[in-house]
């Protein structure tokens, strides 16, 4: 462990992530990991400070955890995964003596509430509604398409069916026809329905302290579920000022004083910015890793700075670089999924391996020979990493990967 600064805050990481632990262990803040009991042996063997905890649905036990951490002298809790966001809110409400933090966390955990609040605050969102059964879904599908002046026989615009509180693409279905609706199992209700927004979808990562944005990154998706790169193309970056404004609105509307947010937006063809959703925890898809590759700073350590009440503005200024200017290049990653039904080994396509932008991959050899069909969006089999000077070339290269077989 690096030497820790006792003058600075003592943070608790809620949720198990080796990447996060590795980064924080190298940082100068005291820390403790709060994770399920199965991690205990590992932490003991590797000298990782640990408090075992079962993160089931939030209940009164949150007070217990808060108390325990308070006794230890912890200053703030940092959620690592979607499921620990409300725990962090509950704990921080106690540690920072700010009861509103729990309510705020609940907002972030419910997509429907979140959108309603955003809308109330004057942020543009698409059409959305809660669905409690399949009938609601059918009606929504029809109504949305009527509004779009579709005639009978025209193909439907899709609608999106999302679980309230899952992260990433888990629980996300795209519904086009009534048959798609029939396939939804009962357990997935109630859920959030959204109209399809045709436009450019992108994500933002923002570190916030004292109600101000300390660093704002725009991540450009090449294809949702497959690839993303950082920093974005000049075309998207051209909208930075507007996007910054939108984030500031978010901060105001959700009353965010400190922390890290990961919102998603759509830029439609009529040049309007629509808010999709926002998460109050690190993004999936190794976005932090891409940011580190492009800029050189570690996002988890940035998180710690953002959450720690004892962080100073000087520290923040010294830690975060200047967006775009200080980037060393563009870093992207591609989520690999086998294109064939039966595969037996991994073989990086030659044109990829020889491309100057290809760095390395974290793909493993196939365990199962049969590939599951993607009904909802599934998880990929690993990532391939790219880095280069030119954003357009990188984008096109990432797009190209979708046609190549990595598993044969």
């Amino acid at each position: 462990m690096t030497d820790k600064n006792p003058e600075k805050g003592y943070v608790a990481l809620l949720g198990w992530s080796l990447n996060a632990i590795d980064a924080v262990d190298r940082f100068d803040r005291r820390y403790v990991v709060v994770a399920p009991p199965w991690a205990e042996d590992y932490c003991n063997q590797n000298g990782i400070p640990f408090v075992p905890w079962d993160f089931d649905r939030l209940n009164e036990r949150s007070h217990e955890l808060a108390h325990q951490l308070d006794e230890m002298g912890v200053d703030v809790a940092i959620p690592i995964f979607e499921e620990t966001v409300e725990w962090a809110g509950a704990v921080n409400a106690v540690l920072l003596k700010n009861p509103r933090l729990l309510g705020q966390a609940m907002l972030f955990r419910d997509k429907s509430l979140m959108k309603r609040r955003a809308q109330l605050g004057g942020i543009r969102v698409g059409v959305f509604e809660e669905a409690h059964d399949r009938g609601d879904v059918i009606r929504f599908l029809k109504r949305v398409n009527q509004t779009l002046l579709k005639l009978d026989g025209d193909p439907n615009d899709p609608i999106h069916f999302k679980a309230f509180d899952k992260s990433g693409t888990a629980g996300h279905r795209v519904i086009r026809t009534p048959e798609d609706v029939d396939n939804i199992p009962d357990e997935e209700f109630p859920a959030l329905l959204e109209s399809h927004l045709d436009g450019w979808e992108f994500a933002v990562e923002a570190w916030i302290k004292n109600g101000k944005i300390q660093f704002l990154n725009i991540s450009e998706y090449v294809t949702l579920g497959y690839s993303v790169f950082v920093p974005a193309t000049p075309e998207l970056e051209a909208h930075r000022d507007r996007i910054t404004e939108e984030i500031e609105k978010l901060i105001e509307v959700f009353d965010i004083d400190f922390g890290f947010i990961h919102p998603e937006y759509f830029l439609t063809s009529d040049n309007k910015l629509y808010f999709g959703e926002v998460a109050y925890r690190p993004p999936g898809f190794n976005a932090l890793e891409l940011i580190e590759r492009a800029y050189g700073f570690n996002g988890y350590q940035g998180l710690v700075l953002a959450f720690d009440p004892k962080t100073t503005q000087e520290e923040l200024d010294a830690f975060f670089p200047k967006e775009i200017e200080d980037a060393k290049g563009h870093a992207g990653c591609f989520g690999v999924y086998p294109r064939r039904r039966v595969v037996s080994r991994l073989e990086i396509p030659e044109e990829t391996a020889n491309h100057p932008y290809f760095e390395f991959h974290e793909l493993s050899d196939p365990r199962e020979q049969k590939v599951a069909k993607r009904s909802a969006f599934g998880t990929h089999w690993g990532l391939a990493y790219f880095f280069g000077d030119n954003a357009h070339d990188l984008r096109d290269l990432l797009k190209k990967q979708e046609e190549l077989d990595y598993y044969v």
Partner: protein
Amino acid sequence: MTVKDTSATDGQSGDAALARLSGTLDVAIERLERARPFAKARYQGPVLDVLGRIIAQPGGLGVVRQRAARMDAAGLFAGSDWDRPEVLMPQLVGGTLMSEDPAFQALEAANLARFLAVADGEARHDNLHQEGARHFLTQVLALNLKDIFGVPDEAARTLGARYDLKRKVLTHIADHVGLNDVLSVLVSEIWRLLEQRSVQVGVVKDMIAQIAIALNEKGTAPGSSRLGAERLVSALFGPTTASRDDPGIAVYLERLSVSDESGLSREAMGFARAMHDTGLVSDYHAAFLTWALEYGDRPLIPEALGLGSTGLDCWRHYRGLIENLVRRAVTPATPQAAYGLAMLLDRGILHHAPMVPALERQLALRIGGVARERIALGFGPAVSPETYLLAGVLRVLGQPLGVGQGANPTCQSARAIALWALNDPDYLLHLITQVAEFDTLLMQFEGTPINSADLPAGLAGTGPIDADPVSVLLVAHLDRIYAEMGRLCAGRPGDPHTWINPQFHGWWVSRDCAVAVDVATGKLADYDDFLRRFFAAYHPDYNGGRPMGHPQPAGIAVTDAQQTFVGWHAIAILRVAEDQSGRMRVYFYNPNNDSGQDWGDGVVVSTSGQGERYGEGSLEFEAFLSRVYLFHDEPLRSQFGQEIPEEVIRIARDQAISSWAADRQSG
């Protein structure tokens, strides 16, 4: 960062690609370096991925070597076998370099680069010093010489890129380490193996052929290693004046036909010298012997075989038989039969009455059925199975201790064949006849007849294919009979070898048996008594000065160089005598192909230099005893050896307990 954004199909110069990949490698190494020990595993894969690509580039290995120490310190090998370079084995490197998994290939290449950096003095490592690293690499090269020179064989060719990588890596190492040392290591290794006079010489001949090619292609600096190498090469490819330039058999025979008597005599003696020096028979030698059969003016065969007085005496008595043996057994496909024959004659076993009729019977033997198929399968169609078998018989009878088990778990059968060849050669020929003609072996266990054809297959299955012809013929049957005898001992207390060994081998195996462990629990039982009894049975100072009359089977606990127990093994004790420096040693036979083994804690089996005869292994008495777990002695014991003092057995006991018996002490 100045990355060219050209696409992959544009011609990118090799240097630019290398520079770019080096940069990428550095990024990957940095991520690995930074990570905490518990988080390193994730970052190893990408480093290996880039390594694989960089090695494929010209100059790539140099880049890897420069970064080897840094990658090591960053934790590239953490959590793998490669984390302890000091216990790595050079024999495994060649296989890993051709692994199906590119990550392993890259890991091994990085490992070798690390060794290279230390050997070159470019880097330091806690557990590796410069000499050790150099030695390791030299051994790797020696064991894989054929992949640096010569043409790849079919198997290698089909592996394509994987094989190319192996060649690349080895060539790079060879360029740095130099081949002088490699040759001298290889040559010492070959001489050490030849000293043991193994019956199977195929592998050694291959190695010598590779040396010949290497000397030809690369030519190394003169020195004693070169002389040693040349002796080996000439013994095979040009031992005499008329064959020195390796002219081919046809040309050589022409030269013979115009030689005068003194020239022929010189040829004969040259062959004999080369053969007795190395134990190898050149094809020219075989051709000479066959040619000499028709040379009427005077007998050249005794000279060409380099016979001593006993051998010459046999020649005088049994010339007709010997000429027939040469005619039938010494062929271009079976030249080593000549050496077997020479040794057999000098042993004098022809003077033992049953041997001449037994060999005449062998000459007339026709092999049938399954036995014929197996020999044809194992040795090919160059000559008839009868010829292969006859040649094999001569070798086994001439070099009893040269019988090896090959890569098979059949040490007991190999041992039996060796002991019979040593002690009961006529019995061995009797067994061979049974199997050849009737595809079965008949033996008895305490009066109960056993017919091997009726028994299910044993450990050996259908028998070894990679062994000498006699073993190929007999081992499957012997194995089954051994197992059946074991079954017939079921229910008897103690180790079944007590009864099996005497019944299986012959009257000369002592009927009583001592075992160091309780068979059921595996723990030491009455170990002090066991040790004392061995001294009383085998040590001349304690058994009344008695030398061993017949070799005795024994069982040992084999340990590796770290003294860890590996398994039980069958050997034979041949004799107990003082070496040149007066130390009492046990000389024994080990059916493993290479008897020179390190059993840990300084217990290193010697195969020459301590009074060993060809094929014997030896250890100091106490060291040997420390590994024995079973031996035979006579039921009628004399009064000798009743009072054996504690200090005498202490050394053996301590060495046993610190190695194979470490966790076997009861209580």
